[in-house]
């Protein structure tokens, strides 16, 4: 076990966490608007396949990420049509979305197995990379890692500091009251759903383009569900979402290293560790006072205005 290098461990956990961090941030914004979209897994895998196809087709990883975001957002718009337009139950629609996404992605991915996507290069920070420890941890990543960290700050700033963020929270607290004040509830929720879908799609594209990088059916392997759980146990706060995502990524990397180092702990226990530890730690953080009032009050409730 002594051969696990701390700086390498941190650097690789940052990479491992990107998909769930992006997806959880997007879902957090969606839920802040009062919409519970359980289809994160489906939107992620749609992002993974759309991104993969686009990147292979154009040879540009950037085009892959844009297509991934578009794929996730596209699937989320289907969710928006059903829940905002036809007032379908959000839980059932979200679950159906995941099943639909898994199936559609497998169909689209036929013929793409075994292909390598174009590589995304790490940003060149020049000599900064040579700083002992910090250089490896902070200056050795591809642009998406920095983008995900930027999005944590951006979402925090948007939610707590801007008027649009305040209106978004208001819609999630009480759609009736927001409507009575003249805010367009459906439009705001539509935007939040699309943002959540795009973020989940990007997270999925990161898995198929950088993390793995290739295409196999069911490549997201439950990352969407972990992202959903992280949003809840992070009490809908961006910084805690970051903590949760890095914790999950960290334990994933650690258990892979332990497996490689030939640990005596059975593989099955190591594989379940990230899921278990993340949930336990986040439950411990979010337990205690104030926990009842964290959730957006109108979460999961459809709203239809009569005019």
């Amino acid at each position: 076990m002594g051969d696990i290098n701390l700086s390498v461990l941190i650097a690789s956990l940052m990479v491992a966490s990107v998909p769930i961090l992006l997806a959880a941030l997007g879902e957090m914004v969606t839920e802040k608007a009062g919409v519970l979209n359980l289809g994160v897994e489906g939107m992620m895998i749609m992002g993974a396949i759309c991104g993969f196809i686009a990147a292979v087709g154009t040879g540009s990883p950037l085009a892959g990420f844009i297509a991934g975001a578009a794929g996730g957002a596209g699937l989320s718009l289907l969710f928006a049509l059903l829940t905002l337009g036809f007032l379908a139950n959000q839980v059932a629609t979200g679950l159906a979305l995941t099943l639909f996404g898994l199936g559609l992605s497998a169909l689209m991915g036929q013929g793409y197995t075994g292909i390598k996507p174009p590589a995304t290069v790490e940003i060149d920070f020049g000599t900064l990379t040579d700083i002992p420890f910090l250089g490896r941890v902070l200056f050795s990543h591809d642009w998406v890692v920095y983008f995900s960290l930027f999005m944590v700050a951006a979402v925090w700033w948007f939610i707590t500091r801007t008027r649009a963020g305040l209106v978004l929270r208001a819609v999630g607290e009480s759609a009736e009251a927001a409507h009575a004040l003249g805010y367009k509830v459906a439009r705001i929720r539509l935007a939040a759903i699309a943002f959540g879908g795009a973020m989940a799609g990007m997270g999925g594209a990161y898995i198929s383009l950088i993390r793995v990088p290739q295409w196999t059916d069911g490549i997201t392997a439950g990352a969407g569900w972990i992202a959903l759980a992280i949003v809840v146990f992070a009490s809908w706060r961006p910084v805690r979402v970051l903590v949760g995502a890095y914790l999950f990524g960290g334990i994933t990397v650690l258990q892979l290293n332990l497996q490689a180092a030939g640990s005596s702990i059975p593989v099955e226990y190591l594989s379940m560790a990230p899921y278990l530890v993340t949930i336990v730690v986040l439950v411990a953080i979010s337990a205690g006072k104030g926990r009842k009032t964290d959730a957006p009050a109108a979460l999961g409730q459809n709203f239809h205005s009569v005019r």
Partner: protein
Amino acid sequence: MSADQPILFIAEGIGKSYPGVRANDDVNFAIKRGEIHALLGENGAGKSTLVKMIYGLVKPDQGHMEWLGAPFAPADPARARAAGVGMVFQHFSLFEALNVAENVALGMENPPRLAQLSAKISKVSADYGLPLDPARRVGDLSAGERQRVEIIRCLLQSPKLLIMDEPTSVLTPQEVEILFKTLRQLAAEGTAILYISHKLEEIRVLCDRATILRRGKVVATAYPAKTTAREMAELMVGSALASPARAGKAQGAAQGAPALEVRGLSAPSPIPFGTSLKDISFAVAKGEVLGIAGVAGNGQDELVLALSGEMACAADMIRAKGESIGAMGPNARRARGFVVAPEDRLGHAAAPDMSLVENAFLTGAVQRKLARRGFVHWAGAKAFAEEIIAAFDVRTPSSDVAARALSGGNLQKFVIGRELRQSPDVIVINQPTWGVDAAAAAFIRQAILTCAEGGAAVVVISQDLDELMEISDNFAALNEGRLSVPRPRAGLTMEEIGLMMGGAHGMEVAHV
């Protein structure tokens, strides 16, 4: 004061239909500047629909409106606010998880930065004698304080017309007095106020003119100061009203052993932003009606939960006929002749999408033995539902319709009837006539009194002081989870009642 003022707003021939309902029909009225104008009518008379049109939330089907002589058809509330319309809603349009300043900002078009806004809120609230801390979370405020948030949100935009939808239903008498002073001050400054209420005495004290609506039509315009409350009530209802009466007190009511005794009941609230109960003690004898007043959110819901058994407490805290029942669940209590009717008709008292038969079964099963070895005795449940429908004059096509399909008054008669028909010894009712038309309310009150005459101990929790004055023998008030010592109702003054309810919650009179 407003006779020679120019006209601010005119509505001509306004009509609005919803499926199956004509909410407004050829409504004409005008508001002058600086006038306090009452809009009076029963529930469902079309008052709310009418003001929603002025505020841009609903579009009229027919007719047109004028604002300062120009045609006025606000497409959304933002346009209405820009023209100078402010509205304080009946069910507050506030966000509990946000603080006061954020809530105010949401109701403004171009709010300043939160720090400046907070300073403005403090200033305006001091000017009008409505103290408020901009940083407090709205979920932690009392109902009276929440209303201040709404009023200040409107005042910050210097409205020309302020619409107030049933503003006093959640206030103590002292808070009402302060609100009226604020409104008169605003009117004197030239702001017109459209005041919606069905409380006639208030309108007589406050308003210059009244437009009376019945079933969507204007039936009269009155000068409240020159009209009696009874005349206005009859215009509103369209017929003469009978007040409930009790034939005579049950024998030995006051001396009898208490049928229900609560001693030192303390319990934390299971409801987010709820009020915990603090050392509540009272006793109710057979044949006695105890009225419990209080502004909403002072522990009423929690007290009902504790009495019904939905929230368990120490066994000795609640006793019925000498038996400790505090730790028992709802069905064990029902088996002992203890019935509870909660406030919320749709969702708590009744399951909205289940039929009346199923709803009758839900609380009647124990007393009426409608379940046998785990199977439902449907014929018995149907007979019970039809018995309630007949005895309480519930207007419904059949007992198989969903509870949701009934009007508020009819469903309330059904859920109250369901409890009263179980020949109970102890009856607890929260808000027996909330949102119910006058005729149904009178019927329900009479039924409660009849049960008391039959020897039941009754606890009525209500925010309607007139109702409690009418039916209770003893009177107490809940304030921040504490119950005042019950006193005989006869001889209590409004001022004493107000103090029992917690006075003015730190409000002061406007001092500009």
